[in-house]
């Protein structure tokens, strides 16, 4: 993917020790504002990798977070953290004044359509974290924006207000869904997405959330395209368990078809996290990991290593 006009090329990543300048809550999530000029160059869709604890920590590996927002003028980068296991619990517990060891900005970014185009943002859980900011960029670039923000329940909805403020102000729709109906309409993000894709205009869908959701978004978009005939280009920000985040460990791979049509196990951290959904081999991506397609380059004879 090449940078569209007006978008800066991705900054060369750095490893920095940076202060947390604000630590508060964003709904059910911890929200951290980190001050660093390099991190502040991040672009929508990119992520940062945060170290846990000090040099005596028993947790050696970084935790990855999508960039919620980056502001090169202010020199800040923001993340939204769900305290899940011990590492994210530690990160979510940081207070203003603490320092964090962060590597970033990392990975690929969302590529918006040219001015006059349309983008639909689809976020599940903390997957919607980057979308208020992404929407801002889109609006600034003259792109029309709609959004779907979903989660399992109301507590896990992320930044609905932020997305609404930007998208609503620009005249776009924001649909909210929860699986259990505790907020917004009951159901899946894909139900809402399908409605937004009924309109027969070329659309870019930018989606971020659990793998199963991303697969469903890809299917929904394909079905809509078939139905309306208008091209729907889907970019998904994938989440694979990552040991390094910088391309040296090969733990984060998933099967993706290349320009040559051949499937390879590519690194989600360097070839992603934003990947063209049409290239992903969804048939081999499951809830707990990805298998190696039998026709992948270098797949073991018989298909299973």
């Amino acid at each position, binding site marked *: 993917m090449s940078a569209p006009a007006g978008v800066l090329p991705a900054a060369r990543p750095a490893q920095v020790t940076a202060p947390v300048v604000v630590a508060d809550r964003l709904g059910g999530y911890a929200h951290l504002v980190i001050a660093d000029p390099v991190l502040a160059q991040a672009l929508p869709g990119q992520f940062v990798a945060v170290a846990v604890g000090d*040099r005596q920590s028993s947790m050696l*590996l970084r935790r990855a977070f999508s960039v919620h927002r980056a502001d090169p003028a202010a020199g800040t980068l923001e993340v939204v953290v769900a305290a899940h296991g011990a590492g994210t619990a530690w990160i979510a517990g940081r207070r203003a004044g603490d320092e964090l060891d962060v590597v970033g900005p990392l990975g690929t970014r969302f590529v918006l359509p040219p001015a006059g185009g349309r983008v639909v943002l689809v976020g599940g859980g903390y997957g919607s974290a980057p979308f208020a900011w992404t929407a801002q960029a889109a609006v600034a670039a003259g792109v029309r924006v709609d959004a779907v923000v979903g989660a399992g329940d109301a507590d896990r909805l992320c930044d609905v207000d932020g997305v609404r403020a930007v998208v609503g102000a620009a005249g776009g729709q924001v649909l909210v869904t929860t699986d259990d109906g505790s907020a917004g309409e009951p159901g899946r993000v894909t139900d809402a997405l399908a409605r937004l894709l009924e309109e027969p205009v070329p659309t870019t869908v930018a989606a971020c959330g659990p793998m199963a959701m991303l697969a469903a978004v890809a299917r929904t978009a394909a079905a809509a395209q078939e139905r309306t005939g208008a091209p729907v280009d889907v970019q998904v920000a994938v989440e694979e368990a990552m*040991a*390094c985040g910088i391309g040296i*460990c*090969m*733990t984060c791979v998933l099967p993706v078809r290349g320009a040559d049509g051949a499937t390879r196990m590519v690194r989600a951290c360097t070839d992603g996290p934003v990947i063209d959904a049409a290239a992903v081999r969804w048939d081999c991506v499951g809830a707990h990991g990805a298998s190696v397609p039998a026709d992948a380059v*270098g797949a*073991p004879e018989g298909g299973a*290593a």
Partner: protein
Amino acid sequence: MSAPAAASVGGATAPDPAAAVDMSVRLTAPAGTVDLAAGVLTASGCAAAGRELDPYLDLTTLGGVVTKTIMRGARSGRPTPRMAETPSGMLNSIGLQGPGIAHFLAHDLPWVAERGARAVVSVAGEDVEEFVDIARTLRAATSDDGPLGRPGTDGGVLAAVEVNISCPNVANRGLVFACDPGSAAEVVAAVRAATDPRVPVLAKLSPDVTDIVAIARSVLAAGADGLVMVNTLLGVAIDVDRGAPVLSRVTGGLSGPAIRPVAVRCVWQVTAAMRAGLLPTVPVVGVGGVRTGRDAAELVLAGASAVQVGTVTFGDPGAPARVRDELAAVVRHHGLGSLAGLVGRAHDAVRDGGHP
């Protein structure tokens, strides 16, 4: 030993904290010697082929980039999940994913050469023939008049070949070369024979054996010019919520600070045997759980001439260069001018009754 490494490499603007210390290390091949800028390298599988680390450290300050083990053809590796974090360590089960030797020689090694760094190329095969094939291909690509420069002696990009006989992930009818003295020796002898005699061949051993000295003896008899110890320990993690193994193929390799005492022990046992005249004396490269210069110093004091920094690089991409500087500080703290002076000192302390 060659001239002080710090003086001759790198172009850091900050004063080099290792400046006063000769951090270099010499490897010996049947027909030459190779001087590495520093006795600190990356570890195989923990630095890809170097390029991805370029934003975080100056590769030329290291002894070299030890490349991800390369095999003959492209390999897709295993399904995911391929990793599990464990206390002070991690399990990995990559399955030697890689592009194959041809792609590596065309795209990866030239980048290292261009960057002015050195490479220790790690090789593996599913059978002896594959090992030999790769070694031959590598030899052909690094001929004296080739684009990658003279191998070994003359400072070309290829500093050494590391023979990965110890990877527990390779499906070889369930057997691992490194666990059997006979097949370990066979592979090392074959790679040694197929490799330029000016390039040292290092054998990388597994700690998952009853008697590591016996394995060391057999690969040294087969012509290894040095030993690398250790590869990962075989481990398993269970996802308690799902009630299933975390890794797609159940077992993985355990690495990180958790295993450092095992790595130090292996280095100790093998170099003790060398000092006792029970094994020929060759350089030992210590690897396993190095997080700081003090950790590296443990391996060096136990007998390693150089160290590799692996897993810790995932959490701290600048680690190999930082470890090099911190290790230099330890050398200085001991009142020594060179890393070589620190090698094996803990054995001397025991011999001299430095114990209660």
